[in-house]
């Protein structure tokens, strides 16, 4: 780990801490990218990349992104589950980088579900 300058990480830490302290456990939305074998083969990692790029570009601070396993609907991957705090989770299917950006823009930021990509409202077991 020689390449990583401690100074850089310290700077970032201080910056993040200022925003993170306020919302410790108080994020507004959680996005779960399904990262099973089926999801990965269908392009789930690209969905994650598009999502992270957009979160950085738009400087969104109150969203957490995580991954889960296969949900059993392999033919409709890549899938993500969007949970807005206090609302039931929404599952999106057959995603592309374009679609996930639209979901971030509409559902996460404005609270409007992108119906044409949504499968259902509700939850399933992932393991």
């Amino acid at each position, binding site marked *: 780990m020689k390449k*990583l300058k401690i100074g850089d990480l310290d700077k970032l830490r201080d910056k*993040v801490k200022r925003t993170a302290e306020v919302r410790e456990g108080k994020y507004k939305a959680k996005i779960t990218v399904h990262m099973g074998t089926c999801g990965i083969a269908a392009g789930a*990692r690209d969905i*994650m*990349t598009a999502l*992270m790029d957009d979160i950085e570009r738009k400087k969104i601070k109150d969203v957490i992104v995580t*991954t*889960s396993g296969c*949900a059993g609907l392999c033919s409709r991957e890549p899938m993500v589950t969007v949970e807005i705090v206090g609302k039931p989770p929404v599952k999106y299917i057959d995603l592309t980088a374009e679609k996930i950006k639209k979901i971030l823009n509409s559902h996460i930021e404005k609270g409007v579900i992108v119906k044409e990509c949504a499968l259902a409202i509700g939850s399933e077991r992932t393991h």
Partner: protein
Amino acid sequence: MQDLSLHILDIAENSTAARATRIEITIEENIRKNRLLVRIRDNGRGMTKHAQIRALDPFYTTKKVRRVGLGLPMLAQAVKEADGNLTIRSRSGSGTTITARFVYDHIDRKPIGNMAETIMNLVAGHGRDIDLVYKHRKNGRKYIFDTRIIKYQLRGVSITNPEVLNFLKKEIIKGLKALEKRRKK
């Protein structure tokens, strides 16, 4: 799967499902000896003898949501296509080590792909609970990424924070780029 980094992401996801607390990913590119080694080692719950024998059977899985398990069989196929070999070493209760060896310049050997994204995905999904070590050797140089060191330096800020994740991805890209320079003789 288009490249090896996607296979690695997939196999490491198995480790997380096996409740590992530490995953070590090693890539060794030995161009002189024309060999490529990819190893994923975890300290998860390991595999039973029965599971090890059947792990490469696509119709064997421990999952409940469906009846197929393609992760290891697809890696085995990628290995076979490049005249390599795959070994699974595991003991029930003490972790699993998957080692894939390839002929480096084999025409059907999949490219390594984007390891920075693979590591970032693993950290995003499991960085809170799992220590991740990624070692990459090439041209006599070595790159090491260790979330334990990063977590220590972050002192309380979550490693899964999107800003931190994007920063780490860029760091890995930089680190891997440095491996490409040939050593001066």
